[in-house]
């Protein structure tokens, strides 16, 4: 079977899960596409995902209310070996990329990490992934009885549900004790559309001047366009914006139809998180800023003057 671990948050199936289902279907391998739902009070998640796969395995346990890398790795490795999975798909989110290597070690399997394509070729799997801060695409091959792959969010088009729901089965897990104790949680929520799901992203960097400048320029333009809001590492570190909005090497990777960079100079670490955007727009005072090299459209000038003028032009 092809096993995929359903990612969900706030009682909803994440987009990354629908993308993994698409990746699993495209493999055209024998054996059922099997979704594993881990969590507590996850009946609705399992019911929803049942419309897109061949069978659903559900571990609905209070111990799984909080994600933990060791627990998740143990659960996935157990189900993969009991079910004789040939491929295990895990979301390439920060958590997915943190527990998938543990699954690979437990199963003595290769790991295809953060892949943007995946296909079967004979009994091996061929994948493409980005390297060198997303400046290089490498093609890799893994050949083993079980291969683990983490799927880069946004790389696959979400699978569409079918008319009939697949059967659900409860599974028993042997979980290790929790060793990492979480003593506090800071979850960042935004009322806007999420960065991963938005067609338009408006991002700001130091060039917006201040946290107030960000609100006046970046947020105002984003709201005018119904866009998501992004930020550079520098201004997240400066405390102007929450980490959840960070785009780049240590933040989120986005590939919207339009990416508008305001006051962003374009360090490679930031570019690696957005350089797959379909159309890029840059507004920056410095004509030499690296962001202009990857821009389709741009304006050299003062963002404080230009952004309000853009908002006005959009309203016309």
């Amino acid at each position, binding site marked *: 079977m092809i096993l995929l671990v359903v990612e969900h*948050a706030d009682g909803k199936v994440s987009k990354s899960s629908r993308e993994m289902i698409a990746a699993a279907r495209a493999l055209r391998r024998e054996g059922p596409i099997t979704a594993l739902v881990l969590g507590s009070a996850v009946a609705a998640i399992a019911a929803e995902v049942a419309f897109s796969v061949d069978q659903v395995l559900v571990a609905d346990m209070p111990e799984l209310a909080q994600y933990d*890398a*060791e627990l998740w790795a143990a659960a996935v490795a157990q189900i993969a070996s009991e079910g004789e999975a040939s491929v295990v798909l895990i979301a390439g989110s*920060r*958590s997915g*990329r*943190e527990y*998938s*290597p*543990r699954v*690979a070690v437990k199963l003595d*399997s*290769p*790991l295809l*990490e*953060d892949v943007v394509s995946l296909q079967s070729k004979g009994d091996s799997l061929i994948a493409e*992934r*980005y*390297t060198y*801060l*997303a400046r*290089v*695409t*490498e*093609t*890799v091959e*893994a050949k*083993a009885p079980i291969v683990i792959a983490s799927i880069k969010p946004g790389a696959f088009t979400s699978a569409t549900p079918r008319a009939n729901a697949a059967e659900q089965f409860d599974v028993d897990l042997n979980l290790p004790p929790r060793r*990492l*104790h979480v003593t506090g*949680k800071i*979850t*960042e929520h935004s009322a806007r559309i999420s960065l991963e799901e938005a067609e338009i992203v408006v991002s700001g960097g130091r060039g917006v001047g201040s946290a107030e400048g960000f609100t006046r320029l970046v947020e105002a333009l984003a709201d005018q*366009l119904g866009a998501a809001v992004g930020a550079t*590492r520098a201004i997240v*570190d400066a405390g102007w914006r929450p*980490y959840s909005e960070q785009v780049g090497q*240590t933040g989120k990777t986005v590939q919207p*139809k*339009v990416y508008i960079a305001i006051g962003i100079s374009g360090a490679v*670490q930031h570019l690696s998180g957005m*350089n797959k955007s379909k159309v890029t*727009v*840059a*507004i920056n005072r410095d*004509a030499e800023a690296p962001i202009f090299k*990857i821009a*389709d*459209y*741009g*304006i*050299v*000038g003062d963002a404080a*003057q*230009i952004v309000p*003028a*853009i908002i*006005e*032009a*959009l309203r016309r």
Partner: protein
Amino acid sequence: MRILTFIRQVLDAEESVRLSGSSVTLDNSKLVIDTMDEYGVEEALRLRERGADAEIIALAIGPPGAQDVLRTALAMGADRAIHVETDARLDAIALSKVVAQIAQQEQIDLLFSGGQQADWDSHALAPATAERLHWPQITWATLLELKGTILTGKHDTDEGSENFTVELPVVVTTQQGLNEPRYPTLPNIMKSKKKELRKETLDQYGVSPTVSVLREEIQVKARLNRILDGKDAQAAASQLVDLLRNETGVIA
């Protein structure tokens, strides 16, 4: 206690990537310590300066030139270094076998590694090593405090951050924001030349790659580069909005 900081030598982020045939070549390129790993060296030093009785060992696995980054770590203040010399490209799962064996031989209590490798964009080494050692892991740490064998701190998660408590031994991944790495001073650079830098060969660790790299290609995405002069903000803004409306299809 003993702290192991794993460090890699990578292409300087400011340098362009070049190909030779169908693979990346680093010949004649500027190579540096992977900055994400450097935060681990710095954090080990700071834990010691705040009172931890720790020996700090830097580890690199790579070609002969990788000893340069070990020299950097020694000059920053690490006590000794181990260099496993190899030209083989090992994926993270294979590499973790070597790191885990060394951590065991050296009786390590705390292992640092960068959150993401600047060359292969991988997060996998630290978790894979933790699994081989049967240790817990903390990824993307932004704050660490050590009291005896209890490590507390803060780290980034999918949608925010968490405060945590964990008992040693543990693997921790480091990143920007955790600290500001120091520059080695001249006296410390001089002193570091006398420090032990042990060379080992890869053979004894019994590893081979689990994934094969078929080819590498530099991404080329042609951009239109239609850059307008913004001296007249109104005119430039209207022109840009017209272009976006006509050519992107998603802006109304």
